[in-house]
Structure formats: structure tokens, C-alpha cells
């Protein structure tokens, strides 16, 4: 019997609203199946199971606010399901408490009912202004706060803004960033791509961004220390899942992950982008596209400024920035020429790696871009 808990769909996520169960008790599921829709600040996310089995009792009601880590259901084996094992039922509050006990509010005066409502709604009593005797917080005070903080009252773009704000603030607070940059000659890559595109129908034509993504993904294999998470220490990841920053026209960003990008051909990466970019813009992503990212790439594209210094998305330990491709004077072998060049920047977590590792990583990306036929 495997417990299925509300997944964290980003460093900034504390809870989500269950909007729909896609399964019922007794349904057979396999790894990767979508079992529910959860509304977060990043839109409605399809959440997936990570194990094969049979769905147990559904412990959460639709439209409940569910803190990250709350037990939602169990995945049972065939034998367990046949034996009729019913997992012990936990309420939302009990499950949430088991995972992360709320801090004890010692110095705040509040009525027991106000405390109970605040706990249920996940409100910090310290943020509520009391109007009762001696400034004690009453039920009415808490309810006023609830009305103010109902997420539905914020527009989608405000929610995205707040999600970005929370993640970036956490990053800047906790991660000691170091930065490196290098400018690379893109002539070989672009010439190779133009030739390849002549043979391809319009719909399948490659964009420079897929060469960049593949070059970065392969570099993650060569320098695995940057393909990692900081989890009380650096933890290297087996898969190379590249988060690709998609800016929303209404403001804010979504960072869907291209999973196993190192294993994909350029054509497959193009197909993956064609699939994921429109869904990111429509805020319709799957949980596996948000929670498994091992390295983020932000690419400004042509016509943009020359370099971008990113802020790492925790728990990752690095972010790569690709500036706009532009013409510049280029000295090589004592000769001066005009070439199409691009500046690559690396922002990395100094707790996890040092400049020497970052240096090897950027050199590996450059080497890959000089051998486009191997991408």
C-alpha cells in the first residue's frame, strides 16, 4: 500500500485546490496516469501517479484546499485490493498535521473558534488584526481575512506573478549565486541548421533554441554536478529534465520541463516544444512537467539583448541564460571576422558547485554547439 500525497508543484507551492478526481476507488492505474486535477497559482495541473496499482479510498473532497504532503489516497497492490484492505481514513487536517505541524501560536490572543477556523483555512493568526477584548482575534476577524485571501479573487496573471515572486524571493534569500559567462560562435550551428531546414517541411523546421537545449542537455551528462537538486546537500539527478522558460503574454512565466532532453533528437525536441509551449501559455500542464526539472534554461531568442543572468529556481542548483544571437566582430587565429555569436551565462549555486565546475559546463556546451551534426 503506497500513500499518495499532494505533490509539491513548485518550490513556492503550499497547497492546491482539488478540482476533479479522474479516478474512482478500485480503478487500475499505471505510472504516469493522471488521477486528478489540482488548481494552483500556475493554473489547473493534471497530477499523475508514480506507481502501478489500484486506487484506494479517495480521502479528499473536490474543491477542498489541500496542503502539500496531505494524504489523498493509496495505491494498493492487487492482493491488497482483493483482500479489501481499507486504508485508515485521515481527515485533511490530521494528514496535514502529520506532515507539517503548524507553528504554535503562543503570544496571540484568539478565541478557540477563531483558532480552529484559522487552522482549517491555513491562515497565520499573526497576520490577523484582532478586534475583540484586549485585541483578541475573534471568529469575525478570521472570516474577514479569509474573504480577503480567497485565491479566486486574484486574476490568473496576478497568481502567476505571486508564484514567480515567491520562488524568486526564496532563491535570492537562500541561494548564494555565482555567475560565469562566455560568448560562442554560432556560425557552424546556424549553417548546419539552415541546411537541415531546407530538407524539412515548414512544420518540422528547427529553431536555434532546440540546438541550444540539446547542447545544454548533453553538457549535463558531461558535468552532472549541475544537473542536481539541493536537498540539505547536493543530490545529482539520473535524468536530464530541462525546464524551459516560457513567458506569458499577460506577464509572468511558466517553466515546463522537457523530460529526458538528452535522449531526444532535435526533431523530437521540436515536437516537444510544439506540444508544451502552447499548453504552458494556456496554463494546462501535467505535474510531471513541473516537478522533475533538473536544470532551467532561459533563451531570449534573436533580436533580444545580449545576455541574461538568471535566478535559480529552487531546489535546482543552476540556470542557464542564452542571450540573443547577433553579429559581432570575432577574432580567431589572428584574423578578424564578423560572426553570429551568442552569450551564454550560467548562474549556479555556490553551495553545490564552484566556478571550476561551471567553467567545465560552459565549455562543454560550446563544444557541443561547434559539432551540430552530433546533436
Amino acid at each position, binding site marked *: 500500500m503506497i500513500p499518495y500525497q499532494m505533490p509539491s508543484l513548485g518550490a513556492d507551492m503550499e497547497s492546491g485546490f482539488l478540482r476533479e478526481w479522474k479516478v474512482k476507488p478500485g480503478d487500475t492505474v499505471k505510472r504516469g496516469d493522471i488521477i486528478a486535477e489540482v488548481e494552483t497559482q500556475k493554473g489547473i495541473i493534471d497530477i499523475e501517479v508514480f506507481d502501478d496499482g489500484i486506487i484506494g479510498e479517495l480521502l479528499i473532497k473536490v474543491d477542498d484546499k489541500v496542503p502539500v504532503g496531505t494524504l489523498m489516497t493509496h495505491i494498493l497492490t492487487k492482493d491488497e485490493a482483493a483482500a479489501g484492505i481499507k486504508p485508515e481514513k485521515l481527515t485533511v487536517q490530521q494528514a496535514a498535521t502529520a506532515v507539517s505541524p503548524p507553528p504554535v501560536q503562543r503570544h496571540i490572543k484568539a478565541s478557540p473558534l477563531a483558532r480552529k477556523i484559522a487552522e482549517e483555512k491555513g491562515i497565520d493568526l499573526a497576520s490577523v488584526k484582532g478586534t475583540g477584548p484586549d485585541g483578541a482575534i475573534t471568529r469575525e476577524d478570521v472570516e474577514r481575512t479569509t474573504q480577503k485571501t480567497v485565491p479566486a479573487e486574484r486574476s490568473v496573471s496576478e497568481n502567476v506573478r505571486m508564484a514567480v515572486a515567491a520562488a524568486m524571493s526564496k532563491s535570492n534569500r537562500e541561494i548564494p549565486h555565482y555567475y560565469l559567462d562566455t560568448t560562442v560562435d554560432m556560425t557552424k550551428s546556424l549553417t548546419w541548421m*539552415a541546411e537541415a531546414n*531546407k530538407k524539412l517541411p*515548414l512544420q518540422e*523546421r528547427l529553431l536555434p*533554441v532546440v540546438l541550444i537545449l540539446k547542447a545544454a542537455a548533453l553538457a549535463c551528462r558531461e558535468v552532472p554536478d549541475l544537473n542536481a537538486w539541493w536537498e540539505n546537500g547536493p543530490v545529482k539527478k539520473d535524468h536530464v529534465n530541462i525546464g524551459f522558460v516560457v513567458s506569458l*503574454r499577460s506577464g509572468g512565466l511558466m517553466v515546463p520541463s522537457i523530460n529526458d532532453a538528452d535522449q531526444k533528437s532535435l526533431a523530437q525536441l521540436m515536437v516537444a516544444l510544439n506540444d508544451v*509551449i502552447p499548453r504552458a501559455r494556456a496554463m494546462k500542464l501535467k505535474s510531471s512537467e513541473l516537478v522533475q526539472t533538473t536544470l532551467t534554461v532561459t533563451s531570449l531568442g534573436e533580436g533580444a539583448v545580449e545576455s541574461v543572468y538568471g535566478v535559480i529556481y529552487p531546489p535546482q542548483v543552476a540556470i542557464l541564460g542564452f542571450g540573443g544571437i547577433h553579429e559581432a566582430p570575432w577574432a580567431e587565429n589572428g584574423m578578424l571576422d564578423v560572426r553570429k555569436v551568442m552569450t551564454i551565462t550560467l548562474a549556479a549555486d555556490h553551495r553545490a558547485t564552484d566556478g571550476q565546475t561551471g567553467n567545465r559546463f560552459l565549455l562543454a556546451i560550446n563544444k557541443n554547439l561547434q559539432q551540430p551534426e552530433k546533436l
Partner: protein
Amino acid sequence: MTEDQIKSVVFRLLKTVAPDTDPTQLKPGDNIRQSLSIDSFDYLQFIVGLDKELGIQTPEEDYGKIGTLKELVEYVSSRRPLAK
């Protein structure tokens, strides 16, 4: 196909990739991508749509020839004879 018909297809397709903009406000000399903040991915979708709707073929080396609205309309006209 008249110039106005070409423009109306162009505006409609631009509106689908950049729904929050008003492409009809583009002046002939405006750079389309910069004026409407369209990234390379969306621009490719736009060209794909243009080729499909107007039955033309736009090779990659011609992308540089269709930066402004005026250039784009002329480019499409040269591939599809204008109605008299």
C-alpha cells in the same frame, strides 16, 4: 487576391499567436515581431499558418525579407498574383 485580403489573413493569423494585441494598428514600416512581441516559436507558427492558408512556401532564408507588414504583403503578393 487583393492586398486587403492578404492583410486580413495576416491580421487574423497574428491575432491567433498574439491574442492580446491589435495587429490592425501596425503601420506598414513597423517590424511585426518587435511591435507585437512575438517570439521565434510563435513566429514559426504564424509562418506555418500563412503557408497553409495562402498555399505559398516560405523558405527559411526568406524570413529576413518579411520583417515589416509592407515587406510581408509584397512577399505574399509576389508569390500569389494580385487580383486585378
